[in-house]
């Protein structure tokens, strides 16, 4: 028998080291994302030794990673020793939504002093938190401080992660503890450098504190070692969404390939759909997640969001109620929906949801911040300020809160000026000047739009103009860096003042008109109008207001049209929200405006009004094209594409690629040779014309410029042939033709200041002071800060006896703080007197004499004014 016994010993000795190696290999496979091999190895190890805790835990972890929650649960329940696997079982049960059982499992691990009892403690506390038992949860988290301090550096990596998690939760009332969370995670990484969990936790912590770049760095470290790590993929997708950067969908799809039952991934996909009117798609994703875990709060949040945005109030309340049954303090649902409301421009709804979140959990700083920011967007400045202060106290890491509060501190330097329909909020240094021009433009725009749309928005409309672009950006986004010129929140519109920009950057009056149009659209649709619709319609309104206002066609747009790089009408929202390339946003503005040009021409403006009303009722764009235009959207796509190609057929022919044209810096002879061979090439003609102008070869330049205009007569860019022709004609002394060329140019350009000024020069020389004044009036709407221009305009107005205009211009001169203020006031008094306004004349002349009592002309005028009483 002795040999058999020896054989068994040998077999036993042989089996023991193999088991340890096998689990180690499986662990490595797990950590590197080779889940299939890891699963096989863990299963084999478990078959060989059902009591192996490490093998069972490893297998459970693989199955959880790949979304096999039922299988994982079975494996856990088969454990011969329940205490050792209780925590793992609890984690699986949470993912399946079996929360009571999970609670029991965690407690078993804790009470049984399982090796992972500390992790079970953290899990239990988190579960209690997520079920609304905040006080109990925070008490449990608080104990981790003593655990850490007592351990004196002897905690294992998993235990350090548990400490870090606890500190993260405690940070919500004691923000400094977030630093301790980071410290604990870093220590965990130090103890186990190959373990991804601490890195993922650090990434999540950075993201929660708004540092998406650092977060992405951490997630990418994990993905470099394991490209299939679900938590890292989720974190990366969330970080990309946070930055509004492309790619989040692709990352989520990769995650779902690994784990198709990942509830957070589905919820994030659902949220993306919601921002694109994809309510049905959003619901589908949410339901998939709920099918796996009916208690997945993030999925219920997404589902509630889909009902909210669709206006299904009863369904929304039902889903919300389900969530609150699971966690009666679940403020995150309403806070998330408040944020979603902001993304879909429903600011009043955001306020409602934020208030609801705060009622559930008064320490929801995100909700306080959303409340404050959106009260500001609704024009409730004091209330918004107070709420933001509260939010910032609770979350001092939040840069939006801080930036906005800093901005609000500067509001004392602004002045409010009321008109019939507006409250103009202007910086004190330029309020007198801007109000002079803005007030009449604002009222004109209001009158025009209210007649056109047949409605009035809530009044007053508050218009804030910021002389600092960074301040405008903070007011809008909470941070600098916004590329826009203006934004409308509804009855509050915010924009750069002309002083925030370089001369010639934009036409502020045109931008104001655009933003006010949004106010009407948002009001008419209860903020349901899609972005593309309102942007396109607002540009269309600009063009209707004044010739040359609004976006115009240019060569880059035509190239995009030629190359098929424009969005279809049915996808135009993506052109604004998820552009394929940065310039597509600008092209989308112009393209969308043409949609409304077509609709108004073919169907009448009533069709547009009816569509706006339809949005208010909750209908979608697809619905409305069918019901109002009696045309499926897909069909309209094709028709509109035909329209564009027909309308721009001439310039498109001029942009047919004919090999390598000479570059922008090519010499003239190269350009001449090219044009000789390609006479229909638009860019070649333009460049050659410009080159010949630079060489003062005007007669040679003219035919090329004329040819370019025949190809593209609507071109009003900085290098427009109209501009060059104007200069040629002027140099030749043909002032009429020069003025006519500038007239055409300004039909296609709203911000060419030099063109308007030159036009005024020419018209004055031609003895047409009234027309010259009109040109300068338009120049002021681009750049109102040139004293000399106002002086000139005042003279012109006086010359044609338009005294109201003279008064306006003299007032502008005074507002611009000229060096000789006494003289400026004196001339203002003269203008008032010419206009028959003796009271204002008296006031102005007294102001002048108050500065300069010995000013003889002013003294004489005073006597004249008094004599006229």
């Amino acid at each position, binding site marked *: 028998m002795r040999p058999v016994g020896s054989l068994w010993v040998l077999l036993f000795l042989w089996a023991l080291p193999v088991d340890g190696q096998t689990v180690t290999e499986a662990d490595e496979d797990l950590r590197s994302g080779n889940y299939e091999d890891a699963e096989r190895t863990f299963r084999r190890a478990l078959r060989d030794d059902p009591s192996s805790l490490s093998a069972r835990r490893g297998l459970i972890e693989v199955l959880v990673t790949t979304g096999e929650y039922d299988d994982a649960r079975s494996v856990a329940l088969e454990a011969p020793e329940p205490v050792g696997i209780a925590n793992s079982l609890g984690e699986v049960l949470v993912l399946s939504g079996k929360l009571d059982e999970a609670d029991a499992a965690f407690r078993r691990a804790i009470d049984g002093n399982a090796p992972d009892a500390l992790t079970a403690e953290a899990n239990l506390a988190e579960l209690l938190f997520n079920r609304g038992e905040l006080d109990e949860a925070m008490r449990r988290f608080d104990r981790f401080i003593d655990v850490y301090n007592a351990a004196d550096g002897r905690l294992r990596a998993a235990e350090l992660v548990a400490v870090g998690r606890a500190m993260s939760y405690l940070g919500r009332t004691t923000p400094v503890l977030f630093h301790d969370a980071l410290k604990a995670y870093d220590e965990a990484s130090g103890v186990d450098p190959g373990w991804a969990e601490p890195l993922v936790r650090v990434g999540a912590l950075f993201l929660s504190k708004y540092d998406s770049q650092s977060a992405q760095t951490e997630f990418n470290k994990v993905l470099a070692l394991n490209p299939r790590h679900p938590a890292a993929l989720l974190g990366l997708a969330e970080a990309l969404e946070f930055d509004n950067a492309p790619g989040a969908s692709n990352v989520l799809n990769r995650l779902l390939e690994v784990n198709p039952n990942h509830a957070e991934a589905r919820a994030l996909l659902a949220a993306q759909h919601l921002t694109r009117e994809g309510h049905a798609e959003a619901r589908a994703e949410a339901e998939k997640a709920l099918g796996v875990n009916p208690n997945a709060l993030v999925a219920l949040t997404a589902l509630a969001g889909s009902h909210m945005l669709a206006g299904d109030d009863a369904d929304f309340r039902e889903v919300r109620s389900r969530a609150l049954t699971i966690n009666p303090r679940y403020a995150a649902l309403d806070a998330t929906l408040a944020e979603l409301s902001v993304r879909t421009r429903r600011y009043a709804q955001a306020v409602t949801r934020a208030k609801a979140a705060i009622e559930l959990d008064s320490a929801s700083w995100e909700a306080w911040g959303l409340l404050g920011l959106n009260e500001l967007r609704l024009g409730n400045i004091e209330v918004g300020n107070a709420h933001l202060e509260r939010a910032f106290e609770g979350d001092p890491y939040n840069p939006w809160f801080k930036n906005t509060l800093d901005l609000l501190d500067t509001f004392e330097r602004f002045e409010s000026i009321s008109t019939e329909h507006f409250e103009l909020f202007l910086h004190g240094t330029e309020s007198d000047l801007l109000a002079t021009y803005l007030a009449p433009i604002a009222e004109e725009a209001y009158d025009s739009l209210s007649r056109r749309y047949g409605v009035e928005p809530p009044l007053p409309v508050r218009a804030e103009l910021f002389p600092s672009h960074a301040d405008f950006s903070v007011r809008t986004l909470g941070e600098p860096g916004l590329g826009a010129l203006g934004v409308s929140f509804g009855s509050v519109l915010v924009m750069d003042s002309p002083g925030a920009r370089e001369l010639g950057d934009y036409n502020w009056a045109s931008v104001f008109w655009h933003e006010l149009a949004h106010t009407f659209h948002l009001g008419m649709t209860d903020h349901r109008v899609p972005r593309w619709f309102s942007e396109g319609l607002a540009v269309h309104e600009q063009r209707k207001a004044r010739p040359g206002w609004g976006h115009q066609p240019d060569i880059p747009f035509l190239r995009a049209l030629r190359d098929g790089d424009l969005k279809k009408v049915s996808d135009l929202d993506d052109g604004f929200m998820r552009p394929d390339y940065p310039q597509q946003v600008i092209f989308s503005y112009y393209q969308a405006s043409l949609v409304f040009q077509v609709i108004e021409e073919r169907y009448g403006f009533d069709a547009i009004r009816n569509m706006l009303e339809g949005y208010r009722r909750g209908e979608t764009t697809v619905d409305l094209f069918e019901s109002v235009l009696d045309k499926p959207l897909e069909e309209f796509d094709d028709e509109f594409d035909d329209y564009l190609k027909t309308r721009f057929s001439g310039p498109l022919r001029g942009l047919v690629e004919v090999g390598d044209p000479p570059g922008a810096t090519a010499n003239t002879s190269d350009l001449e040779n090219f044009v000789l061979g390609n006479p229909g090439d638009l860019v070649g003609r333009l460049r050659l014309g410009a080159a010949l102008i630079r060489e003062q070869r005007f007669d040679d330049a003219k035919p090329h410029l004329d040819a370019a205009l025949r190809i593209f007569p609507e071109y009003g860019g900085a290098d427009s042939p109209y501009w060059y022709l104007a200069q040629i004609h002027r140099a030749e002394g043909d002032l009429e033709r020069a003025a006519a060329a500038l007239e055409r140019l300004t039909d296609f350009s709203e911000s060419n200041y030099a063109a308007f000024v030159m036009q005024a020069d020419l018209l004055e020389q031609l003895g047409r002071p009234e027309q010259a004044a009109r040109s300068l009036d338009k120049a002021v709407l681009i750049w109102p*800060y040139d004293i000399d221009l106002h002086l000139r305009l005042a003279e012109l107005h006086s010359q044609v006896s338009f005294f109201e205009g003279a008064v306006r211009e003299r007032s502008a001169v005074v507002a611009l703080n000229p060096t000789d203020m006494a003289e400026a006031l004196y001339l203002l008094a003269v203008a008032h007197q010419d206009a028959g306004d003796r009271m204002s004349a008296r006031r102005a002349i007294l102001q002048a004499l*108050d*500065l300069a009592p010995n000013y*003889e002309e002013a*003294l004489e005028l005073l006597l004249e004014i008094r004599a006229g009483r």
Partner: protein
Amino acid sequence: MIQGRVPIAGARVLLATLLTGIVFPLGLQAQGETHAIIVVGLGGSAQYRERFHNQAAALKAALTERHGIPAENVIYLGERPEDAPDVIADKSTRANLFRVLGEVGARAQPMDRLLLVLIGHGTSDRNEAQFNISGPDLTPSDLQTALIPFPTQTIALVHTGSASGGFLTPLSGPNRVIITATRTGRERNATEFPEFFVEAFTDDGADLDHDERISLLEAFLYARQEVERRYQEQNELLTEHAILDDNGDGEGSHDAGLTGPDGLLAATFQLGGAAGTSAQTPDDPELVRLYEERVEIQESISQLRAVRDALAEDAYLAEMEELLVELALKTREIRALEGGNE
């Protein structure tokens, strides 16, 4: 940071403050003469040489032709006298400046005034600021010594060049107006200040209170404001900040005015009209009477301004209007009589 494109804040208040101050009567008291010395330093290049000379020549012409300073009282020391011998008296060296100051000091009366304008480049090192001229550069301590012959006279030093700020503190003192184009010696770029300082005297734009005279305060404010406007229009960083000290505390004010701490003395240093020259008392006793009556009205206006804050705005304006009407009618009478006497 680049300055914003909004009107310069505060200047409106400053100008109002300046001009709601003291009203000076026209030409009845005996006032001393004004002696002006313009010193042009090394240009370093043809462009700057020409620019500095043109500014100096224009200033000289304005002082004599527009502001009534006798030609023999305006001396221009330049880099190259041979280029314009009828305008430039001598070469701008330290020795020549000392000599000229000595000569002027010897003949100046106790109530006379000295205006010393430096146009050119300045530099500054750890030891002392310098104004670059042929030979040894001019330093504040040089000028301190050279100004000894002017114990009682009001002295105005205007250094319009780069790094001029270092001249202010050492030369500050009682009865002195010091104007520098830069706040400190570290502002080393060539300055725009001299162009506009000269323009204050050659053109009409600086007579901010329209009393037909230019004070040094008006010239300073005009030049300072126009410099700022120039940089704004060119979208450039403001690299020069002019300051004025006239209360002898060694600290210059960018926002000088009549509310202090600096500006009062500079406001009284006026050129033009009768104040720029020796007293001109009319021969016609009727005119004398009218002038006296006008002075009384002007004094009433000053007194009303002094209590402005104690009055409601409407009440103030109503009273002011009545005084202004009186002043207007009196001025009419004076002009009518002056016209008849020509």
